[in-house]
């Protein structure tokens, strides 16, 4: 099945969110300041970027 540009953006968004959440999951394994820093500096930005890309893909889809 051919993938449209919107779907490729959704795919990238899903991958970013999935990666961010898996990283967040890994930081939950131990109580340590480094776990918090990893969550805040890497996990959250990845999730936010994925969500933003998804929302943008919805808006862009209406324009296209």
């Amino acid at each position, binding site marked *: 099945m051919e993938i449209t540009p919107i779907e490729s953006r959704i795919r990238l968004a*899903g991958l970013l969110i999935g990666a961010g959440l898996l990283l967040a999951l890994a930081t939950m394994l131990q109580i340590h300041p480094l776990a*918090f820093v990893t969550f805040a500096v890497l996990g959250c930005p990845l999730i936010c970027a994925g969500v933003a890309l998804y929302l943008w893909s919805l808006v862009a889809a209406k324009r296209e």
Partner: protein
Amino acid sequence: MSTVIVVFIALAAAAALLMAFHAPWTRSREGKMLGFLALFLLPVAAMWGGLSEHMERAESTQFCLSCHVMEDYGHSLYVDDPSYIPAAHFQNNRVARDSACYTCHTDYAMFGTVRAKLRGLRHLQVQYFGTIPKPADIKLYEPYNNRECLHCHQGARKFEAASPHNKNPGLLESIKSNQKSCLSSGCHDIVHDVGSLKDATFWKPGK
């Protein structure tokens, strides 16, 4: 709580990755709804839950003492000498052991928790990106306020009726109004005292 959040984050990650590998599902109405759930609602909720869990964990003694520079402060909680105020509180369960640092080093004021969290972020910045001071050089941001002691002790019979607190008229009031410091006026002045731990003996729990 922790297990619930971990499972929730794992499910959210699985849902997001499922959508990533099945993007064409979003062509149908149900797929669009699933996409909104998996790529917006669940990740935002999971991120909020994770942040909340990390914030709660940051209040634990284990978290505070996991930085190398705080190790001596952790040892000071086990000094076998009741004149060490933190040790006496920790060993006698006057503060919860799993949140001992946070209990005494949080301002019991309106924005005390927020201030403690912001200071915690500064500590992380120094720990990972700054110059770490020697344990003995670590100082409080401001003189210790009696309010933090009175949060638990005020109204307690032992505190109110203790003869040293009533040896002069007005002394108890000056303690309560923070005019006379509990810690720095020569009464309870042995706190962590990490510089003298080499000569100290230590309590071993269970013995």
